[in-house]
């Protein structure tokens, strides 16, 4: 983070008035989002609290550089992602036998999507999503997304989040989770298949 703490604190005093961080409601909401995000990744509330706290302190120090709420939010989440990535990388020793066991049990969890020749079963064939990106504007969509994420088997969710949220490369995830590349590919595939199906059933093709 910034090396010039003294200059930053002067700027902090100057610009606090207009800063989004001076709005308690915004700050509280932002903190809540960050905490949910960090807890999902780390599975450890205390670690998550610490990471969020550090990221927010960094934001306060650099408050002058943000044009608006969106820029600030993007920035603190980038800091938070880096912190989580560091914690995950250090964690590689802790992959336990229990998790490996669970990975085995997840082996055949969606074979019923395809027929014997490996083609889509009629009911399982992915549909076309209309205007898929507009969903990100909808608060309800994010609730569905989080529910779908929480329904993934723990291992799949962790690996998926390392890849798509923290944006670790394959070899980094393999080291952190102590799995082989082919195991990683299969796990990511299963997570994506499940998430896709969950979003399709509960959002994109939801009939109401």
């Amino acid at each position: 983070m910034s090396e010039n703490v003294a200059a930053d604190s002067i700027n902090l005093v100057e610009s606090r008035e207009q800063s989004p961080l001076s709005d308690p409601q915004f700050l509280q909401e932002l903190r809540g989002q960050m905490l949910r995000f960090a807890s999902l990744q780390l599975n450890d509330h205390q670690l998550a609290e610490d990471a969020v706290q550090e990221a927010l302190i960094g934001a306060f120090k650099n408050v002058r550089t943000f044009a608006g709420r969106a820029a600030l939010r993007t920035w603190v989440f980038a800091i938070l992602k880096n912190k989580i990535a560091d914690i995950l990388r250090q964690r590689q020793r802790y992959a336990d036998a229990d998790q490996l066991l669970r990975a085995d049990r997840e082996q055949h969890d969606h074979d019923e999507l395809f027929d014997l020749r490996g083609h889509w079963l009629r009911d399982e064939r992915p549909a076309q999503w209309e205007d898929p990106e507009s969903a990100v504007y909808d608060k309800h969509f994010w609730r569905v997304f989080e529910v779908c994420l929480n329904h993934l088997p723990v291992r799949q969710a962790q690996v998926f989040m390392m890849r798509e949220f923290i944006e670790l490369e394959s070899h980094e995830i393999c080291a952190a989770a102590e799995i082989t590349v082919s195991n990683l590919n299969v796990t990511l595939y299963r997570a994506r298949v499940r998430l896709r199906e969950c979003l399709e059933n509960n959002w994109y093709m939801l009939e109401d």
Partner: protein
Amino acid sequence: MLKSCREITRLVSEAQERQLSLSEGANVRLHLAVCSGCRNFSNQMKTLREIARCYTNGSGAANDAAADSRNQDNGDR
């Protein structure tokens, strides 16, 4: 079809982590040309990644960040 939907969807997923070989890529393209299910799947993989990017921008509950990231996306195209 040379490869099954099961195989093709796995390759489509893996393409998000690594460059497919020439023959893998050709297999995928040929298959997607004739299979709407896998074509939809392939598009959805890209959508999933974009959604994840938005989520990690913190737009999970906020519209301003989502609007920003959409503007960026449009700029990229």
